[in-house]
């Protein structure tokens, strides 16, 4: 029987047109990213011709103080915004899941508004807000000068945490909480001991979502950033305005690597957590 077995009705991966289609889709998705990373190792000022392998651009990046400053700003903003988003988003999710109160439906609908409102509108809104309604003082010491950016990042990050945590809460068995109460736990203690472990996978994925979104946000940050509060994406943009240099490629590659790494770690942690909780 040297002949290949016949293609079964569900063997989609063995049909040529479909294989081609998958190839095209993958190329569209990943070629730009691959070329970006590849040219960050290109030993040439011009970006179009491949001249040889080098890590010079990364070394140069490491020596660029303004870029490093922007990078540290970005990480700081992302970290603080994530902490606030997780706390705020989780509490909001618990309130919406647990309690009935007047205006709950409205609150429930409004909570996802920052997710659906176009980013450019959010950006302009933040500009107006911090410009005329609530001017953020200018000459604060670091990191307080980042306050306006941090607040606007929390605004669009915490609804994502809230949505993720709520989905997880739906599978919570209320008898667990009642059992904790029955065994002597106060209301707060019961939430802490039983509800929190249950939503932990959602907290991790919500936090990673918030962190990566904050880290690579450009539009909203662009509207709220001042001359002394430049973030990594905003800095890359200002570099591109002159020309697309290999430094830009390298910087983008670094940003990409960080987000990919975080996502992988997140999926790993979550997988372990879910496995240990549900068996």
């Amino acid at each position, binding site marked *: 029987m040297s002949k290949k077995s016949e293609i079964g009705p569900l063997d989609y991966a063995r049909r040529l047109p479909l294989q081609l289609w998958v190839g095209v889709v993958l190329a569209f998705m990943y070629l730009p990213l691959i070329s970006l990373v590849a040219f960050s190792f290109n030993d040439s000022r011009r970006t179009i011709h491949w001249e040889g392998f080098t890590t010079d651009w990364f070394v140069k990046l490491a020596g660029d103080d303004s870029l490093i400053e922007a990078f540290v700003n970005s990480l700081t903003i992302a970290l603080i915004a994530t902490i606030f988003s997780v706390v705020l988003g989780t509490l909001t999710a618990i309130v919406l899941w647990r309690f009935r109160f007047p205006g709950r439906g409205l609150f429930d609908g409004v909570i996802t508004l920052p997710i659906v409102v176009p980013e450019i509108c959010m950006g302009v809104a933040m500009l107006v807000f911090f410009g005329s309604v609530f001017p953020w003082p200018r000459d604060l010491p670091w990191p307080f000068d980042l306050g306006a950016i941090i607040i606007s990042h929390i605004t669009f990050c915490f609804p994502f945490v809230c949505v993720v945590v709520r989905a997880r809460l739906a599978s919570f*068995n209320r*008898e*667990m909480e*009642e*059992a*904790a*109460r*029955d*065994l*002597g*736990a*106060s209301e707060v*203690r019961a939430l802490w*001991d*039983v509800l929190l*472990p*249950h939503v932990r996978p959602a907290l991790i994925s919500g936090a990673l979502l918030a962190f990566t979104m904050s880290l690579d946000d450009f539009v909203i940050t662009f509207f709220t950033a001042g001359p002394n509060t430049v973030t990594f994406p905003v800095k890359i943009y200002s570099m591109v305005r002159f020309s697309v240099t290999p430094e830009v490629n390298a910087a983008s590659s670094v940003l990409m690597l960080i987000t990919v790494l975080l996502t992988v770690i997140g999926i790993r942690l979550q997988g372990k957590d879910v496995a*240990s*909780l*549900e*068996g």
Partner: protein
Amino acid sequence: MSEPMIRFENVTKRFGSFIAVDNVSLEVEAGEFFTLLGPSGCGKTTLLRMLAGLETPSEGRILIDGVDVTGVAPNKRPINMVFQSYAVFPHLNVADNVAYGLKIDRVPAQERATRVQDALRLVKLEDFAHRMPDQLSGGQRQRVALARALVKRPKVLLLDEPLSALDAKLRDAMRAELAAIQQEVGVTFVMVTHDQDEALAMASRCALMNRGTLQQVATPSDLYEYPANRFVADFIGTINLLEGTLSTDEPDHAAVQAEGLDAPIFVNHGVTGAPDSRVWVGIRPEKLAMVPATQPRPEGPAALPPANVTQGTIIRSAYLGSVTLYDVETQGGATFKVARPNGERMADPALPAGESVYLSWEPTAPVVLLT
């Protein structure tokens, strides 16, 4: 008589306009194995949850060991509960699950370890202390929930349908074990169940509920032999219920003319009913004697010879192993369920459908119900 362990005083619970528990007064003595039995939605679980403090009564008071706990939070009551889903904490191992309540009470580590050990030994899980709940079977998880509740040495242990999630064989084993554990620890148990076999087999006393009200509180045998009304008679086991008119009512005997029967039903006890009032007569299937009509007609009671005998035709039969159940229709149109024990192996072949038979019963067999 000493103070009862649990006392419900005119307890009512409303959810909106729905009355889940309607003016229930009930006392449970210390050391009892008390069951709350009833069809789903009868309010038995609500009653249990009010005892645990997970619901607050709309009206009335609840006392535990003489102390009014009506407004007391669940974590401040001398009561622990085994939940229907067991609610074993999935992120803690067996020992930590059992130790949880003791940790909250700040029991010193040394004492805690001993008590957890003892509790695990009681439920035969001492070898599983370091297992995670997802590595346990349903029955083992239930033991964890039981140990976790008992380790706190509550005055009352509540069990919410504890056996309903187990398969039949395991359920029988757990039934015996729960009863044994109750004997050993001497704690008052209050168990909710919709399974009457479970309630009858385990309980020292049983409260039967329907639509939020108590129908009868009695020992299992009294519930079966002396039901208070038609609902109780019908819910517990199988019974033949006949509607009729009370024709004679003396202190030591009574007679009922039932619809569908040519002869009256004679009982050897008085009924406190108005003469000629509507009553119902219940006769359990195993208390009916059945002989083929080819044999002589059985004799009725000496006081009223034609009574307690009727003739009918077998409609169908069901062989259930230990007994055979027959449906018999009388000439008047009444149907009886008759249970015949299969006492000797193959000695008594089943009577065929269509066979004409005599049914008879002792004057002690029927129970007369006024409502």
